[in-house]
């Protein structure tokens, strides 16, 4: 792993320590691990173990790092495995807005009276959170304050983030939407190098602390199989992992790792696994991308491996209850993962997978959105997220594709490019990958879209032209009689014309493995599977977005795993 930072470091500085550890970690992984032959482990008795530790954590993100540290704090030896070549998971590019409260140090100092009961009430609200597992939420609520203290004790610093007190902790306010740590100061250690990616201020210090405490990391290894005594009975013995390349592609080199106490699955959910997510929402066909997929691909490996040894899924109703952001509205254009904040540019270590910065839209009056058939479907300036998403997912009527309504393209002309001051070249747009096209006429533009792998049939050029001509007539007359967009001011007429990827992206997994309140995984009979734990987005139970639930459940899983016999 290359170390790119050049921050202002001193001997006692955590930044320096991170660099030291990164170098050391890579060496440890290489020397300590003997690579096993690629023979499949058919039954528990024949397994040749390459390594043995107390606890194995799969995933080194928002839930995996706390799990690893908490297990280590509990006296366990720990190996943390991740299929990306760096730690941090999706959390490293997140805004770092952590939904935990319950009366933590900052809240108390600001006079907030929030308690664990308030947290419990909030995340079991009978309307919004009716599918939550209240046992898990109760434990989550009770662990909020201790987890805040745990973060501070492991180097996460909240003090320099000015918005915490005024924004979230006004006296008398009991609901705590979020609290942010300081951003990790070494920009080059981060994935999105522009400001505001405060999630880096969680995972970078946690990684340092974990390494400091002796957690060993195996990076660029993916979970392949969970070993259990019998397929559906007995305790979990360990895992088989497989080395992957920079594209997460298997390299056919395997290791069997034995877990004396437990395996904890913290692999970030299933958003990027088309078939897994379509079990809950059949509309989510493969054109929909997943935020953060270039950083940490949430491919449900943990869930699938656990289902194969008899695990159950939990609180699946949460997943289809789209009220709180499973999918995102109109985002950035011309890049397949179009999250609106956090620019991933060529200096980022994952740019080769992300491929473009994308174009930010200042005024949605500058374009129209069309589906794969070249037809509009929405008032483009309407920001109602759920309405947009529902319409974007409606199929276009072809019997060959009755699920899912994408891809969706933003269509605009050179005058719009000038107004928006967009740059239509590398690294701003992803032309090579097929997410941005230009053409002298609309027909020529439409003909090129077939180079995008998700454009499952050619877009008829005359359909696109007619859509644009009709829209232009609305500009002239002042009335959009199709979608009621108020007095669209700009025609789309001046060549060249452009098509930029604008298909909505998925953001969260809200269901996963069924666990008890200690994060121990259950089977289909409701029995706990000895030695198997799960946390973060791979765990079912809580429909709270993001970091808060992942960090808290990760820490709980780590503590409980260390206690497992």
């Amino acid at each position, binding site marked *: 792993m290359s170390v790119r930072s050049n921050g202002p470091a001193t001997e006692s500085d955590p930044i320096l320590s991170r660099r030291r550890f990164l170098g050391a970690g890579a060496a440890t992984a290489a020397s300590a691990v003997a690579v096993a032959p690629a023979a499949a482990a058919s039954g528990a008795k024949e397994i040749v173990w390459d390594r043995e530790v107390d606890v194995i954590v799969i995933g080194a993100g928002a839930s995996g790092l706390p799990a690893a540290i908490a297990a280590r704090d509990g006296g366990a030896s720990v190996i943390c495995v991740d299929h990306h070549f760096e730690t941090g998971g999706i959390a490293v590019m997140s*805004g770092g*807005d952590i*939904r935990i409260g319950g009366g933590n140090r900052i809240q108390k100092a600001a006079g907030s009276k929030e308690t664990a009961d308030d947290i419990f009430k909030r995340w079991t*609200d009978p309307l919004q*959170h009716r599918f939550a597992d209240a046992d898990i939420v109760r434990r989550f609520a009770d662990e909020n304050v201790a987890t805040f203290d745990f973060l501070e004790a492991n180097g996460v610093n909240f003090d320099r983030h000015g918005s915490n007190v005024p924004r979230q902790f006004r006296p008398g306010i009991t*609901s705590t*939407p*979020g609290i942010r740590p300081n951003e990790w100061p070494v920009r080059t250690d981060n994935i999105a190098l522009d400001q505001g990616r405060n999630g880096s201020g969680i995972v970078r210090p946690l990684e340092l602390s974990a390494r400091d405490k002796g957690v060993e990391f195996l990076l660029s290894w993916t979970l392949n199989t969970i070993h259990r005594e019998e397929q559906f009975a007995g305790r979990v013995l360990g895992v088989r992992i497989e080395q992957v*390349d*920079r*594209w*997460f*592609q298997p390299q056919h080199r395997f290791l069997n790792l034995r877990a004396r106490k437990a395996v904890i699955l913290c692999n970030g959910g299933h958003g990027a696994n088309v078939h897994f997510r379509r079990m809950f929402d059949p509309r989510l066909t493969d054109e929909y991308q997943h935020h953060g997929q270039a950083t940490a691909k949430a491919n449900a490996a943990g869930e699938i491996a656990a289902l194969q040894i008899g695990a159950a899924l939990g609180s699946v109703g949460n997943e289809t209850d789209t*009220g*709180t*952001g499973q999918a995102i509205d109109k985002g950035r254009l011309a890049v397949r993962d179009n999250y*609106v*904040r956090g620019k991933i540019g060529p200096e980022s270590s994952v740019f*080769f997978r992300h*491929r473009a910065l994308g174009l930010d839209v*200042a*005024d949605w*009056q500058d374009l129209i959105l069309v589906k794969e058939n070249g037809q509009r479907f929405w008032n483009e*300036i309407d*920001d109602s*997220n759920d309405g947009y998403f529902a319409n974007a997912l409606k199929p276009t009527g072809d019997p060959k594709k009755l699920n899912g309504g994408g891809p969706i393209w933003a269509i605009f002309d050179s005058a719009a490019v000038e107004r928006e001051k967009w740059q239509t070249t*590398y690294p701003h747009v992803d032309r*090579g*990958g*097929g*997410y941005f096209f230009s053409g*002298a*006429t*609309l*027909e*020529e533009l439409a*003909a090129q879209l077939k180079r*995008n*792998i998700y454009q499952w049939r050619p877009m008829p*050029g*005359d359909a696109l*032209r*007619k859509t644009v*001509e009709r829209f*232009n*007539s609305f*500009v*002239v*007359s*002042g009335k959009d009689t199709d979608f009621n967009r*108020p*007095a669209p*001011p700009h*025609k789309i*007429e*001046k*060549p*060249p*014309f452009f098509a930029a990827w604008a298909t909505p992206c998925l953001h969260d997994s809200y269901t996963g493995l069924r666990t008890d309140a200690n994060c121990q995984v259950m089977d289909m009979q409701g029995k706990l599977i000895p030695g198997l734990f799960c946390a973060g987005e791979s765990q079912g139970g809580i429909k709270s977005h*993001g970091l808060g639930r992942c960090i808290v459940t990760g820490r709980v899983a780590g503590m409980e795993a260390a206690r497992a016999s």
Partner: protein
Amino acid sequence: MVDPMKDTASFPLVLDLVSPPTQVDADCLFTLAVALECDAPCDLSSVTYELHSGENLIGQGVLGPILRFDPDSPDYDPRNGPVEKRDQIFLSARAPKALGHFEWHIVIPAQSVGDIAIEATQIDFAATTSIHQTSLAVWDVPAPVQPGQKMRISIGAKCSAGCDLGGLSMRILNQGAGVATGTLSALHPQMEGLWCGEVELDAPITLGLAEFDVSFAPGDPRGLPHSAAQASFSTIVDAPPDHDVAVAIVDRETGAPVEEAHIRLGLQRVSTDMTGRVIIPAPRGEHRLFVWKAGFEIPEQMILVDQDLNITVQAKALPVKNPYDRWQG
């Protein structure tokens, strides 16, 4: 593989077409991507190939530069990683002039590269030739216009195979009747193959929306059949202005001017300048005044234009959306 009869190794070469086109423009150059698999420890770029149509040799050349599988290339993979891991070459060939189905054989004769022998191999390619498609773009259409006003618009035409369309003409129709003709006179300075011309025509004399069609029937330039192309455009005919309406848009809270707000007064479309102002010539009568600026809420109003007017519009700045609100539930 070692041929016992020879003292040099002989290597099989496996060819495969990568996403070959099924339709190509007649008599046009097109490119075929061919994947190569060969264990020969030599550079294959000098290997010769032949192109056969039935028994006839119709072309030959050397494979040329080989595109190696490169995981770091920005064009490496549009989705999730390696899709095409094989080395590739690109053969350029001219499609037959005759329209319809054709079949070719790409043949690599047995040959040696240095002292390494490459075995003969062949792969077939079939496709259909089609007539060249043309398409149009129409821009700089003024709106609104006054009855009978001279309008100058720009029209561009493009051939899918990039043929020269210079000198060809197109017709403008209004309600099915020809109202003007124009000639494609020059290539667009920035866009390859887009032939452009300006056309002058008279606006209709009746007030209201006016729709026009452009029809382009290029016939057979270069002796090759081209499809006809169509496009439509619209404008709106408004009465001549009688008065000036000066509009200023200000932020309701701060009093600051709102620049680049889009304004529509009746049929006129304009934007405010840096001082948040604009003067709009308007015909007498009652008109809707609609103002749009992203991030502001601005109620629309009806304005009676019976003299020169000064209007100030209060714009309410909307709270900046907290991106995290979405997850507060």
